[in-house]
C-alpha cells in the first residue's frame, strides 16, 4: 500500500515535469510580436510538403519491397529484409550529410571521377533523404500486416476470377492498409520533428527556423513556431491513435511466383535501395577517413556523449519504474503515464527551446549538464516506461501468489520471481535510452554547456564550418551506435512475440 502511494507521488511529479516544457513554450509564445505572417505560411507549406512527400516516397519504396520480401521467393530473403531495414540504424542527418557532400558541383563524385551531378538540396533533396531513411518504418509495419494475412483469401479471389496482381490489389492491400498507415504516420512524425535533414538541405521548415530564431535571440518567436509545429504533431498523433492495427491469426503464407526476369528486376531494385541508403554514406565516410583520418576529433566528444547519455539512461530508469508501477494501480496513475508519453511527440528542437527558457528562469539549471539530461529523460522516458511495462506484464499476479503460497515472503517473491522476469526488459530499456540520447542532435545543440561537445554536435560543427571531411569518425561512430540500438529493439520485439501466445 505504502509502495503504491510512493510510486503514485513519483509518477505525479514526473507528469508535472513532462507538462512543464509545453507550458513553457505556451507562456513564451505569448510574448511573440507576430503569431502568423506570410513568412510563417511559407514555413508551414515547406514543413507540410516535406512530410507529405516523405510519406509518399516511403510508401512507394516500402510497400512494394514489403510485398516482395514477404511473398516472393527471393534468394537469401532474411538477409534482404535485414539489409532493407538497416537504414533505420542510420540517423537521417548522417545520410543528409553524406549526400550533401557527395553530389553537386565540387562534391566527392565530381572530385573523384569528374562525374557532374545535380546538387541534392532543398525540398526535393530533403524529401529524397527523408524517404530513403524512413521507408523501413513502412516496410516493417506492412510486412507485419502482410505476414498475418491468410493466403487462402488470395486463392479464393483467384478461383473467383481475379489475376494474381489484381488479387493483391483488391484483396491483400486493403487489409494491409492499416499497417501501411501506421508506418506512414511514423514517417510523418519523423519528418515533422527532424531538425538536421532540412537544415543541411537548406529547406526552411519549422525545425530549421526555430533554430535560426533561437540563434538570433528571438526565443519568443522560436516558441511561437514550436507551438505551430506541435499543432501539426498533434494532428499526426491523433490520426495515429485512430489507426487500429488488426492482428489476424497467422495463416498460410501467400505465394508470389516470379519469373526469372521479374526476380532479377526485384533484386536489382532492392540492391539499388541498399546501395543508396547504406553503401553511399559508408563509402563517403570511408573515403574521408582514408583521406583525413581523425584530424580534429577528440576522444572527449565520445566520452561526453556516453557520459550524458549514461546519466540520462540511469535517471530514466529510476523514474520509469514508479511511473510504470503507478500505471497499473488505477486511473490517476494511468493518466500520469499517458502524460509522460507527450515527450515522445515533442520534437527535440522544441524540447530544447522550452528547456532553454526554463533554464533562463531557473539560473541554477542554466548551462548545466542537468538540463541536457532532463531533456533526454523527458524525450525518451516513454521508451523506458513502455519496455518496463511490457516486461512487468510477464509477471502475472498468480506467479507471485504461487511463490507466496510455496512459502516465500514478499521480498523473496520479488527477488526470485518478479525481478528475474523484468530485468531483461529493464536493461534493454536503459540501453535503448542510452543509444537514443547518444544520437540526439537538436536538443543537445541548444542545451549543451559551453565547451561540451558530443559526437552529434561535433558533426554539426564540422558541417557548419564546411570541414566535411572531419566528420568521418563521429559519423561512423553514430552509425555503429544506432545499429546497436536497432539490434536491441528488434531482439526485444522477437522476445515479446515468442512469449505472447496466439
Amino acid at each position, binding site marked *: 500500500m505504502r509502495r503504491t502511494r510512493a510510486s503514485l507521488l513519483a509518477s505525479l511529479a514526473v507528469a508535472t515535469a513532462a507538462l512543464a516544457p509545453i507550458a513553457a513554450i505556451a507562456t513564451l509564445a505569448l510574448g511573440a510580436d507576430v503569431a502568423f505572417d506570410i513568412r510563417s505560411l511559407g514555413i508551414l507549406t515547406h514543413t507540410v510538403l516535406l512530410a507529405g512527400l516523405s510519406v509518399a516516397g516511403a510508401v512507394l519504396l516500402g510497400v512494394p519491397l514489403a510485398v516482395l520480401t514477404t511473398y516472393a521467393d527471393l534468394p537469401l530473403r532474411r538477409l534482404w529484409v535485414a539489409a532493407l531495414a538497416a537504414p533505420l540504424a542510420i540517423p537521417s542527418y548522417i545520410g543528409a550529410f553524406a549526400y550533401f557532400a557527395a553530389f553537386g558541383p565540387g562534391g566527392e563524385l565530381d572530385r573523384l571521377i569528374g562525374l557532374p551531378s545535380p546538387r541534392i538540396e532543398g525540398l526535393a533533396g530533403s524529401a529524397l533523404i527523408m524517404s530513403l531513411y524512413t521507408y523501413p518504418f513502412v516496410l516493417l509495419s506492412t510486412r507485419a500486416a502482410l505476414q498475418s494475412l491468410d493466403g487462402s483469401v488470395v486463392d479464393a479471389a483467384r478461383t473467383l476470377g481475379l489475376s494474381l496482381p489484381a488479387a493483391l490489389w483488391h484483396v491483400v492491400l486493403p487489409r494491409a492498409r492499416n499497417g501501411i498507415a501506421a508506418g506512414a504516420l511514423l514517417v510523418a512524425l519523423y519528418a515533422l520533428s527532424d531538425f538536421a535533414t532540412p537544415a543541411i538541405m537548406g529547406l526552411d521548415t519549422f525545425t530549421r527556423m526555430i533554430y535560426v530564431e533561437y540563434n538570433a535571440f528571438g526565443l519568443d518567436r522560436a516558441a511561437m513556431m514550436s507551438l505551430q509545429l506541435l499543432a501539426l504533431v498533434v494532428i499526426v498523433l491523433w490520426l495515429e491513435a485512430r489507426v487500429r492495427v488488426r492482428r489476424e491469426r497467422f495463416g498460410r503464407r501467400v505465394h508470389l511466383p516470379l519469373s526469372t526476369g521479374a526476380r532479377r528486376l526485384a533484386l536489382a531494385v532492392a540492391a539499388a535501395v541498399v546501395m543508396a541508403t547504406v553503401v553511399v554514406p559508408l563509402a563517403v565516410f570511408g573515403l574521408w577517413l582514408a583521406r583525413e583520418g581523425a584530424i580534429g576529433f577528440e576522444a572527449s566528444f565520445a566520452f561526453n556523449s556516453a557520459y550524458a547519455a549514461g546519466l540520462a539512461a540511469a535517471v530514466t530508469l529510476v523514474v520509469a519504474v514508479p511511473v510504470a508501477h503507478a500505471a497499473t494501480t488505477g486511473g490517476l496513475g494511468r493518466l500520469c503515464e499517458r502524460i509522460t508519453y507527450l515527450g515522445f511527440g515533442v520534437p527535440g528542437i522544441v524540447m530544447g527551446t522550452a528547456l532553454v527558457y526554463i533554464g533562463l528562469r531557473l539560473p541554477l539549471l542554466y548551462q548545466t549538464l542537468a538540463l541536457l539530461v532532463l531533456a533526454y529523460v523527458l524525450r525518451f522516458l516513454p521508451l523506458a516506461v513502455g519496455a518496463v511495462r511490457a516486461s512487468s506484464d510477464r509477471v502475472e499476479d*498468480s*506467479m507471485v501468489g*504461487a511463490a*507466496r503460497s510455496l*512459502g516465500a*515472503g514478499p521480498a523473496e517473491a520479488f527477488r526470485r520471481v518478479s525481478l528475474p522476469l523484468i530485468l531483461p526488459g529493464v536493461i534493454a530499456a536503459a540501453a535503448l535510452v542510452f543509444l537514443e540520447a547518444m544520437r540526439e542532435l537538436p536538443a543537445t545543440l541548444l542545451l549543451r554547456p559551453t565547451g561540451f561537445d558530443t559526437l552529434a554536435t561535433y558533426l554539426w560543427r564540422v558541417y557548419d564550418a564546411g570541414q566535411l571531411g572531419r566528420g568521418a569518425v563521429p559519423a561512423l561512430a553514430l552509425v555503429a551506435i544506432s545499429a546497436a540500438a536497432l539490434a536491441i529493439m528488434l531482439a526485444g520485439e522477437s522476445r515479446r512475440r515468442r512469449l505472447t501466445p496466439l
Partner: protein
Amino acid sequence: MLETRRLTVRYGRTTAVDALDLALADDEIVTLVGPTGCGKTSVLRAVAGLLPPSDGEIRLGALRIDARHDVPPEKRGVGLVFQDFALFPHLNVADNVAFRLRDRGPAEHWIERLGLAAHRQAMPDTLSGGQKQRVALARALAHAPALMLLDEPLASLDAALKAELRWEIRDVLKAAGTPALWVTHDQTEALSVGDRMGVMHTGRLEQIDTPDVCFRLPATRFVARFLGDAAFVPGRLEADRLVTAIGHAPAPRDCTGERVDVLVRPDDLSLQPAAGGDGGNGHVAWARYEGETRLYGIGLDHGETLRVRTNHEHDYARGMRVAARICAGHPLAAFPPGD
C-alpha cells in the same frame, strides 16, 4: 483442517462471498462449484491469503484469520494450483518444483510420480497444457502443504485430457493424504472428484453434501437445475409417497406440505409406446442419439415437455404416442409449489 465461519469477502460495494460456513476434514476433498461470478474463487483466494476477508473467520489448523488478524500466504502452509498454472517462466521444471526446497528429494518424488522425469530440464513454455498442470501440481505437493487449493485446475485443458487428469489429481491427493478444496465451474468434474461438494450461488453456499445427495436431493431449485437436466412436475404428498399425474415415488424423509413440485430428471422416467388400453400421455417431440443412450423430448398432453433418457435400443419415431412414467425407486426431491 479448514473451517470458515461466516466468511465474507467484499469488493467495494459488491459482496462476492456472503457469510460462508464451510468445514473440511483432515483428508477430505471438497469441490466448490457454481456458475461464473458466484464467489467460489474468492473463497479460495481468501483461504490462500491472496484476498483479505472483510468479515468472518478462517481457521486453518491452529491459525485464526479474520479481517484484523491477517496471516501472509507464505505462513499458511497451503498449496495453490492455478487455472493458468503460474509456472515461473525463467525456471526449468525441476527448479520450479523444488522452488523453496533445500532437500530436493520430495521434488524428485513428485516429478517421478507425475510422469515428468523426461522433462526435468524443460522450460515451462515448451510444455503442453497437461504437462504444465502436472508440474504445477508437483510443485505444490513437493512443498508438503497442509491443505491444497485448486482453482479451476482443468479449465484450460481439452476435454480428453480433462477426464484423464481429473482422476490422476484425485489419486495423487489421496495418496499424499492432503485435504483439498477444489474450485470448478464444471458440474461433472465437481460430482466426480469430490468426497463432498458445495454448490455456490451469488456468494452463498446453497448446499454442501455428498455428490450423490446433492444430485438426487438438491436443497434448492437452483442446485437442482445447476447439476443436471431438471423438470418440476406438480404433485401431492400422500403418507410417504409423492403422487403425480405421471406416477409416484418415495418421498424424502423431511418432506412437508400437501401440494409439492417434484423434481424429475431424465433418468427418473421410463418410456413405453402407447398400446392397447394405455393411450399414453404424450408424444415424442424430438429425439437425440447420444451413443450409449437416447434423450427424448416428450410433449405431455397437458402442455409441458419432459426430457427422458432411455437405453439406446429404444428407437421411437418423432410424433409417436408414448407413455412417460416415473420409474425411480429412490426418493425424489420435492419443493413447495411455485417458489
